[in-house]
């Protein structure tokens, strides 16, 4: 694995852009300083949003042997922070700033059995792993979950390559994944790698824990960009600093606090490390915890939150029906 996470920035040229599913663009890149991407790796990309440069992470779907050709795929998410909209404007011949491949989601060679689980565009992190497991003749099942077939990228290619090792669940065909059944099929020697919406990953983690399987065998990657609820605009207040800021749908609470002049501590910006933790003093609404740093117990207690990814919602119960028409949730916090 020999993972390295030193960011080496370089220019890359867009070689080809192609639509591979509803709202999903396949983007082929030619980096100036090629390095082969191992399965599970991603690149960071500088995206331009309203004239500002921001960093986004995208899984490497394919890499040529020498790394001269890297493929990512991006889903247009109108309600997200704007990076995907920028990526969808790219055309062949455009250049952009990217890192060499980085690795936070290494595939371990040598497990007895593998389950690869992809939800929606999460397939981008899984495609390369599946290809390697097939070439190693490993015992694996690739489970691919989506809303509808038209929204599922690479489906035909995956079917061709993986045949019976591929199991597809499609919501609008009434074949939605039953997480408990999937996890019941896992044994003590099974490693499960997943990438998908946080609802799916939370459900898998719960089922995995209930079956008392070995937690280190459950591998996942989150880029902190999905929640249990659609993003809403909300208000954050820091009384000690006299800050009251609006957090728009496409902004994170951390970014809004930085914009308002708060000196914030953070690191991963994807809800893993816990450094951006803020203390909740008062809450009008509820928290959509989008991190993997807190345990379920801690998230439920709602005393703290990871402000890099988690958000306020109006519904006090979290149920959609309880969403308040009167307007935004208000989170009053203190920061370190």
């Amino acid at each position, binding site marked *: *694995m020999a993972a390295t996470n030193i960011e080496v920035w370089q220019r890359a040229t867009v070689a080809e852009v192609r639509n591979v599913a509803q709202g999903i663009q396949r983007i082929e890149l030619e980096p100036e300083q090629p390095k*082969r991407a191992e399965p599970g790796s991603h690149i960071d990309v500088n995206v331009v949003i309203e004239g500002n440069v921001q960093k986004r992470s995208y899984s490497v779907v394919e890499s040529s042997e020498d790394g001269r050709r890297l493929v990512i795929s991006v889903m247009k998410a109108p309600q997200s922070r704007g990076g995907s909209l920028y990526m969808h404007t790219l055309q062949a011949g455009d250049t952009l700033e990217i890192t060499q491949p980085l690795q936070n989601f290494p595939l371990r060679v040598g497990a007895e059995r593998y389950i690869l689980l992809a939800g929606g565009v999460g397939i981008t992190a899984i495609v390369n792993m599946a290809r390697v497991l097939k070439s190693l003749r490993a015992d694996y099942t690739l489970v691919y979950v989506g809303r509808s077939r038209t929204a599922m990228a690479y489906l035909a290619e995956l079917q061709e390559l993986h045949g019976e090792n591929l199991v597809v669940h499609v919501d609008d065909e009434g074949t939605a994944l039953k997480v408990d059944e999937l996890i019941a099929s896992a044994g003590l020697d099974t490693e499960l790698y997943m990438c998908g919406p946080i609802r799916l990953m939370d459900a898998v983690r719960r089922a995995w824990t209930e079956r008392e399987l070995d*937690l*280190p065998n459950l591998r*996942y990657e*989150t880029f902190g960009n999905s929640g249990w609820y659609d993003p809403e605009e909300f208000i954050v207040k820091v009384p000690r600093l006299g800050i009251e800021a609006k957090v728009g749908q496409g902004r994170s609470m951390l970014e809004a606090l930085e914009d308002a002049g708060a000196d914030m501590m953070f690191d991963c910006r994807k809800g893993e490390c816990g450094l951006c933790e803020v203390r909740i003093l008062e809450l009008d609404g509820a928290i959509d915890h989008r991190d993997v740093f807190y345990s379920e117990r801690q998230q439920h207690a709602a005393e703290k939150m990871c402000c890099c990814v988690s958000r306020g919602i109006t519904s006090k119960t979290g149920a959609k029906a309880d969403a308040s028409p009167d307007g935004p949730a208000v989170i009053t916090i203190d920061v370190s």
Partner: protein
Amino acid sequence: MTVVQSQSSTTNKVLGHPLNAWYVAAWDHEVTRKPMSRRIANRPVALYRTEDGKAVALADACWHRLAPLSMGKTIGKDGIQCPYHGIVYNSAGRCVSMPAQETINPSATVPSFPVVERYRYVWVWLGDPTMADPDLVPDMHQMTSPEWAGDGETIHADCNYQLVLDNLMDLTHEEFVHSSSIGQEELSESDFVVSHDGNTVTVTRWMLNIDAPPFWLKNMRDKFPGFEGKVDRWQIIRFEAPSTIRIDVGVAKAGTGAPEGDRSQGVNGYVMNTITPETDRSCHYFWAFMRNYRLESQLITTQLRNGVHGVFGEDEAMLKAQQEAIDANPDYEFYNLNIDGGGMWVRRLIERMLVAEGRLATSA
């Protein structure tokens, strides 16, 4: 990884090492429940055994603040605990416990390197793990075969690993470096034959009807008490990429058919050598001397080990001095002699491996 400029003459003075290869990390008995550290191919590696006795090789740097895991302790069934903040990893390098939080950061892993235990050694693969096929472990079967007995040691050699390979691929130096034990003038007077394929190089040398040097006379007398007379002596050096060399050595009573295949009137040993690069200018040189006669004699095992220890001590001093001279004369090149034929094929096979890994530019 730095791309080193290749020279068409195949004489890089400091040759890089392939990463897609099995290297010996340690003798099997060195790896225990108490973690140890060894730098292999420029990468510090923590080695330990699980409760079940399985050897484990992890990057010797905690994910968190890079403290050496080898200073920590083994914990539970297969874990190791960082000595600094107590983070625990399992044998796959995955964090299983993190201080002061209820969850584990999913990114928290340290590289876990593929391991094979074979021929009394623990082998590790530092390159692409998807290519780590155990069948690629170099053949050193004499180490564990019931038809052979012997033992060996490790030399920490202060030189680029290639200098050791050069040393072993051309035994002409025995005449000058090892004059009191195995050296004799017939070495540089006799002809040798070099052959190679994609992965191996063989150098064969026969010296017929000569006096046995002291080391071999003693061995002959161990098998044939009171032996006197001329011998036929052979050295068949077999290299297997990237850094294992077995040397089939021996002497037989002159004219009894050894060159034709009948070695019954002689003594046969195998000098087992496998070299693991440590840094660009140092290496771990694992050697053993195996024999196929008087298998029951621990005395002979010890005598041979001690004898070879003395011989290799002479090489060690020469290799260190050579590396120092290379570094002190950066503007001087290597030149090659006819006797370097074996060593030059070794260099070419290694350079091909480096090119395949994209770590050596091909010369135009």
